[in-house]
């Protein structure tokens, strides 16, 4: 796999292939272990609901990482994502069932930058709600 997107092939408005991601409880447990973020609101429903959350919620960083896949699958080389930032605008509740939550992510080129780079804006929703705000990246193209 190589950086497969040429700067000259994109323009403002170019859409990145949209993707959907399923998040189940086991995914939260696995991410907790890999990242070291063992905050109980990501695995303990009793405590999550006692502090006013609707359910166990996904790590914002897991949502951010999944959304980045729309960037990295598009460009091929993950290191081409030179800047990436989000606001966590809504929690992603993950029920204890076989479906979990579904995250839908799309992306669009919003600006052509110097050095064959582009700015991409991502849209991420779960259960119809926008869960990331100002989700933007700078991607190095070839």
């Amino acid at each position, binding site marked *: 796999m*190589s950086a497969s997107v040429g700067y000259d092939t994109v323009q403002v408005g170019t859409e990145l292939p949209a993707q959907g991601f399923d998040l189940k409880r086991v995914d939260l447990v696995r991410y907790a272990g890999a990242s070291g973020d063992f905050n109980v609101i990501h695995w303990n429903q009793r405590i999550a609901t006692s502090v006013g959350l609707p359910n166990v919620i996904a790590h914002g960083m897991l949502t*951010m990482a999944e959304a980045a896949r729309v960037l990295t699958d598009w460009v091929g080389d*993950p290191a081409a994502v030179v800047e990436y930032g989000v606001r966590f605008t809504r929690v992603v509740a993950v029920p204890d069932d076989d479906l979990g939550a579904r995250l839908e992510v799309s992306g669009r080129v919003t600006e052509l930058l110097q050095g064959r780079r582009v700015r991409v804006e991502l849209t991420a929703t779960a259960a119809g709600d926008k869960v990331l705000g100002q989700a933007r990246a700078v991607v190095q193209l070839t």
Partner: protein
Amino acid sequence: MALDQAFAGRTYPPTEPYLVSREKIREFADAIGDQNPAYRSVEAARALGHPDIVAPPTFAVVVSSRASAQVIFDPDLGLDYSRVVHGEQSFSYTRPVVAGDLLVAVATVEKIRSAAGNDLLTLSCALQTAGGEPVGTARSVIVARGTAEDAGPA
């Protein structure tokens, strides 16, 4: 209780050096369900021009969170962790994180402010190698819900 504005501008000591291993990158890639070969195969990463397998764009949180924790759990700052949520996160890189990197993070409190009854703490974590080579910056906004002085009843 509102957070002490005197913490704005404060820089904490560098974290203990963290050795980025191939297996940790693979484990993290598994945890985010990403099969990109650049996270798994040295040959695939080298074909892209990297010296070793590449870390996903958000992997640096494994290192930067250790620096943020110094601030979040600083008893003098007095943040109530049970009320803390992650408000914003961003990463910018001067070069990719790759397996074999020995990284340290240096946290600085950029800003402390109150909004709608919440305390907002903006942290900047400079990521660099133990030898001092800059790698990037991880910036986060930590929100302590309902802790500012103008907060209503919780």
